[in-house]
């Protein structure tokens, strides 16, 4: 029971890291809280669902296609709206409302297009074998999802630390003004970060039917809050801290589900609240508290 809980917590935690990392990237670069994060994830989930049920495509393939499409959509949204948003008096707060509006639009269109019924993909779509890890049996879909999550996160690491645009992205995270004054095109970097952020959300979405159960057009809001707790536990604005946050979140929710199921829902919020109060910058972060 204990080993099972720990291993499934780690597998689930890897997926949770993927779920939060896109949100954190966007927050880190633009200081915007993407309240539509969960809704982009939902779009990714429906993409995988339709690819699998209509054309029999593997969710792993859908994931690759979605990443490319979403990068384009994200950059488009950035150039269409954000420069205007930045000219207002309080862009950080206004962005909350802005993304809330986007989330409403996505949800409404999704309900109109897909109807409100929950859908699910047969869990064997990612392989039906049963893996033995330390004497415990795990569905292949969980193991494969965790593996895919780990690969995508590794790619984010490569992007941030081993490419030129990644260096620029980290510079913008540090300070927009300094980055701009050293000749970095902040708008271009932010647009790419926005695209990648949404792409990561939809990538997590393609795996969500296997880890979170059936998908509905309205699943987004809850996922946004969960992703928040994950990135705040890790640390806001540090995408790789999300991995730590995701693992802690995955482990603690598995433990609560195994031992005290009726209070399990409280976990993300309790963690979020405690960390905000005692270490608002997250476990790996720097000081952000103000007077």
């Amino acid at each position, binding site marked *: 029971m204990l080993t099972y809980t720990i291993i499934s917590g780690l597998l689930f935690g890897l997926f949770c890291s993927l779920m939060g990392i896109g949100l954190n990237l966007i927050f880190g670069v633009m200081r915007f809280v993407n309240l539509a994060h969960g809704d982009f994830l939902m779009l990714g989930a429906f993409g995988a669902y339709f690819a699998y049920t209509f054309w029999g495509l593997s969710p792993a393939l859908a994931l690759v296609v979605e990443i490319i499409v979403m990068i384009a959509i994200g950059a488009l949204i950035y150039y269409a709206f954000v420069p205007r948003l930045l000219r*207002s008096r309080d862009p950080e*707060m206004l962005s909350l409302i*802005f993304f809330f*509006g986007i989330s*409403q639009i996505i949800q*409404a269109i999704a309900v109109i297009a897909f109807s409100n019924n929950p859908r699910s993909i047969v869990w064997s779509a990612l392989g039906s074998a049963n893996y033995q890890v330390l004497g415990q049996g795990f569905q292949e879909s969980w193991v494969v999802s965790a593996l895919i999550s780990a690969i995508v996160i590794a790619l984010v690491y490569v992007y941030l630390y081993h490419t030129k645009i990644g260096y620029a992205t980290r510079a913008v995270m540090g300070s927009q003004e300094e980055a701009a004054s050293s000749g970095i095109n902040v708008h271009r970097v932010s647009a790419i970060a926005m695209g990648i952020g949404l792409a990561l959300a939809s990538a997590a979405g393609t795996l969500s039917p296997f880890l979170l159960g059936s998908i509905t057009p309205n699943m987004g809001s809850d996922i946004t809050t969960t992703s928040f707790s994950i990135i705040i536990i890790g640390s806001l604005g540090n995408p790789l801290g999300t991995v730590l946050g995701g693992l802690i979140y995955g482990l603690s929710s598995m433990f609560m589900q195994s031992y005290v199921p009726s209070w399990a829902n*409280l976990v993300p*919020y309790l963690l979020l609240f405690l960390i905000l109060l005692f270490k608002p910058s997250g476990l790996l972060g720097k000081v952000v508290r103000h*007077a």
Partner: protein
Amino acid sequence: MRKHLLYGAIVFVVVILLFTLLPSVYSNEDLFFQAMVYLALAQGVNILYGFTGYLPFGYVGFFGTGAYATALSITLLHIPPIPAILIGGLASVVLGILLSPLLRLSGAYFAIGSLAASQMVYYIVSNPALQNLTNGPYGINLESVYQPRASYITMIVIVALVMGVVIYIRNSRFGLALQAIREDPVSAGMAGIHVVRQRAMAWFLSAMIAGVVGGAFAWHISVFYPTTVFDLNISIFAIVFTLFGGVTTVLGPVLGMFVLYGFYNVIGISEPQYFQLIYGVLILVLVLFLPSGMVSLMKRRGHYVP
């Protein structure tokens, strides 16, 4: 100055007259009751966000706490409804005191922290383990004290008080102090404003409003579930109404509520998803073209907005 108060008083009188007279013109009291609930909540958000800059995404936590505290004092302690509503307001203030460390956070951190706090209260209240006390997820039944007429009048009184408080804040040193803190807490402190105390006052005031409104709502609706009174949409509606009208004014939340909530009732109930779509588009338009709300149309022409 006196002229400014007069404008505020006009808005006050118009709102109260509307809600007193409308039910005899169009007999859908529940609709107007809901409108008053949202108006009072929007003004509560206005006090907190408009004057201090803290955006309370979890504002519904106070509303739900008030509703539950009122309902439980009626069912368990057999207190009459009106004192029970006051207990609801008090319970929200107590929750506000417990959550006051949140005020140390700023910007988006506060918004998300308050959201988490409200969800925690929700999960505690609705937990099956507490069924003996709160009846868990199965809700509350107050039919024994159901008096729609009396609760409607109580709500009018609450709206009047809330509007009065906002008019006072808008025209007083307290309101100016809060705005100074919002713009720059350090300079405000230098100018002799007690930053922590003033900010906490606004926070408790806003919590109490939500609690009292929640109590009156519980009494009027009489049968409800945790999901009804802790529905996040309540926070979001209140925030969007306030922003749509324009913050830091008396008129803004009133305008925002009448326009958006009226709109919601025209198409939102029969076609919720189309309403949601239009609503989202409206929010985008607002953010992009009118970031200071509808009242900025008047302000731009140089008119004073109460």
